């Protein structure tokens, strides 16, 4: 929540919010990672990359939370 200058109406607008688009769009682009190879620890790409997207999601939402609180 941005408090803003005194007298300014409060709002939840912030350029940082655009960062939230990344973890929303990335996991939905299945054509980018719908493959078996390369494998990581036995996991096909399709699985380990989507698990890695969790970290992308956590990072982006944490940054937005910190920058707008």
């Amino acid at each position, binding site marked *: 929540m941005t408090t803003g200058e005194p007298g300014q109406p409060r709002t939840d607008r912030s350029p940082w919010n655009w960062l*939230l688009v990344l973890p*929303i769009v990335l996991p939905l682009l299945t054509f980018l990672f719908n493959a078996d190879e390369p494998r990581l620890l036995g996991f096909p790409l399709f699985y380990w990359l989507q698990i890695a997207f969790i970290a992308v999601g956590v990072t982006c*939402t944490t940054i*937005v939370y910190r920058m*707008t609180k």
Partner: protein
Amino acid sequence: MSGHTTELVVFVVLFLVVSAMGFVAARWRRPESIESLHEWGLGGRNFGSWITWFLVGGDLYTAYTFVAVPALVFGAGALGFYALPYTVVVYPLVFLVLTRMWSVSHVHGFVTPADFVRARFGSPTLALAIAITGLVATMPYIALQLVGIEAVLKSMGITGHLPIIIAFAILAAYTYQSGLRAPALIAFVKDALIYIVILVAVLYIPAKLGGWGTIFDAAAKKFAATPNPADGITLTSTNQLQYVTLAFGSALALFLYPHSLTGVLASKNRNVIKRNMSALPAYSLVLGLIALLGFMAIAAGTKPVVGANGKADTNTIVPMLFDQLFPDWFTGVAYAAIGIGALVPAAIMSIAAANLFTRNIYREYLNKHATDAQEAKVSKITSLLVKVGAVLCILLLDPQFSIDLQLIGGVIILQTLPAVALGLYTRWFHKGGLLAGWAAGLAAGMWMLYLIPNPANGKAHFGGSAFGLANLGFDTKMTIYAGFLALIVNLVVAALGTLAFRAFKVADGADVTKREHYFVDEGDPRVKDLDLSASH
């Protein structure tokens, strides 16, 4: 039952410990009086980050998830993994939406999504439509939690309905007494058990089966041998669109369920919600690993329990896998985790359904001047009735039918999105347009679900959520999530309807919320203004 004694003893002991906690919860963070909806139904709206994390997490990741998602992966492969992107997408998606909902609810004392719609669009009819949609979508969800417990009991060789009735009677009693405090407290135990079980499962089972590579190879081999072109360990050309729309559509639907909002509104301030939106994905990791239990079951050659009707119940696949590979005592712990995993969400869902009935039907239509104590009383009794209804769903209907109802539930709850979620951002829609869109979306959704067969169990209708685009005249085998398409119909009709109602100058409802109400936080004088009658 022989051979399952150790499992059963561990299961029953843990179950009873948790039940005792449910009763004690009434004294936890004790209010002066629990006889109001804010206390009974929202725990005094004073939960900090930790409790909210467990509560919302306990609410979204249910016993049915633990049972059904791996069952889907076991049967269909990659498509079942949609549950992971779904829970990655959802938190950034609702990050801003939920903080707005929290603020406006705190200014006006809203307890349900329908409360908000009533105030925003000035239409009791639209609010009633939203309330009934929420109730209808939540009921089968509660029934499904019973399916989760039933799968565990079946795997221990216990058939018959009496154990489930007893389990739900205990649940009903402590929810009645403690309200939202009961699931909030139990959620700690539930999560601790689930994290332990899953950590052990993903370390121990692959080691026993020869590593993750072997597991995926075994699954790939099984799917290559089946005649179904839509299964496999990666997506096929026909189900990519289904995967994406199912993940996205489910994410859009998640926080429209009244019970997900219950946990959010109970939090103390906006930052608690934001912090949780970045911390909750820890559950997504667990969910992804749980989904992969389906592949482990393939590699281990696990067979599901065959029911009295001669059909295999794939919902028992994970319990059977545990039974096969874990020592008895740990299987008991795992079963207790699933069983308790059913109680937390079932309690929150029944509270949310009860709040919907109390606020948007009882108070709106039956007793306009209800006192706080009367509201709490009605909610408590409704929560009991909702649970009896859920048990009856399982006893009187084929459980498979409850699963179909849940599928329909997801499609219909999505139809509240324009009024509830978009309503938080814009007052552009006309109340008549929203009602028309809601009706059109429901009709389109039902029509599509009706057309979907399930070859696996020979059903001609309501056999899944994958709607063939061929039905619309496209020359393709591609499928799309029916709920997503129905939502598009809803939005188009709502927009056209709004333009039409404006053109004919049909009166619109009044909006009693103000722009600044959507951004207030804890400490603002308006937030303390929780006089329930003020918003009506």
